[in-house]
């Protein structure tokens, strides 16, 4: 543990002007236990600390009573639907072209798709419909992609905002998606889901 070094005192002759040398005691303390404890504490704090504070995604919903029906031309409505297996389908009938069946969309292509559609059809309204059994992750994924697209458009036009609406799935959409799935002969595997 602790040890005290007592150096040999040199006896000097007393004389005027000569100061007596200060007595020096060298103290040596074994610091190993202290350092051990310090490192233990260090490891403890390193393990328990959280660095990445979670982020949050802000959602604004329209008030329930204020949803007065707004007439939007069919050509400006892009429907995105998600079935119970998290497959994304889209439906958009601009002008004379009438899309009868929704088309499957790969999650990785969603962003480019939304950018393209919004560039080609200014003032596009995206209607989102999710199946009740689809995953929450898919919803966050689509919301996030929409926010990313909005952010990209805001770089050129700060006033730009993505027009979207969250609505319920009806029997009609289910039937359309079933037909689409039958027409394409099944969803390509390992592409479903957000990731």
């Amino acid at each position, binding site marked *: 543990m602790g040890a005290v070094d007592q150096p040999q005192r040199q006896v000097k002759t007393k004389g005027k002007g000569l100061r007596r040398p200060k007595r020096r005691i060298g103290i040596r303390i074994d610091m190993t236990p202290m350092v051990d404890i310090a490192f233990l504490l260090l490891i403890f704090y390193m393990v328990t600390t959280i660095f990445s504070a979670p*982020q*949050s995604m802000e959602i604004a*919903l329209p008030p329930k009573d204020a949803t007065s029906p707004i007439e939007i031309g069919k050509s400006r409505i892009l429907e995105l639907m998600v079935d119970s297996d998290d497959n994304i389908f889209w439906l958009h009938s601009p002008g004379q072209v009438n899309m009868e069946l929704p088309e499957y969309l790969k999650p990785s292509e969603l962003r480019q798709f939304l950018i393209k559609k919004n560039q080609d059809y200014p003032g596009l309204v995206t209607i989102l419909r999710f*199946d009740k059994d689809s995953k929450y*992750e898919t919803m966050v994924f689509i919301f996030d992609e929409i926010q990313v697209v909005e952010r990209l458009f805001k770089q050129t036009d700060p006033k730009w905002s993505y027009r979207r609406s969250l609505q319920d799935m009806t029997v009609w959409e289910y039937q359309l998606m079933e037909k689409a799935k039958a027409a394409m002969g099944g969803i390509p595997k390992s592409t479903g889901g957000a990731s």
Partner: protein
Amino acid sequence: MAKKPRRRIGIAIDMTPMVDIGFLLLIFYMTTTQFKPPEREHVTIPASHSEIKVPDAGLINITINKNDNIFIEYVTKNDSTGEIYRESPEVTINTLNYELTKARLKYPTAYILIKADKESHYGTMRSVMSTLQDLKIDHFSLMTEFKTDPIQAGM
């Protein structure tokens, strides 16, 4: 025959710099650390590109675990004694409205944060959002993890 005495080399390393650094790190972690609040439900949150930080205080937390169970968590403070209570009643969709109203009466300024597991279902989320709409809470946040892949413009 006398054995040759083994030669021992005494190595002395000055550990002072290491200990210095060690203590510096220790002080750093001690001052910056924030303990994880006790979690009742383990929730794996989804990722997004959103960069808005979750505020530290002033929140009513709605937690949805992967089995679609709903919990509300909030901290209340007794003004006279300064005591802090953490309340976390388990709720169902039918009692969510009541429990949320109760929480908001105690904590009128609180912001709603939804912390839902990514495996939970949209149906639950829909009911929660519908309840929030009923309570005239139009703005709330979803807790997400930061997604690191870059946003490609591609425009």
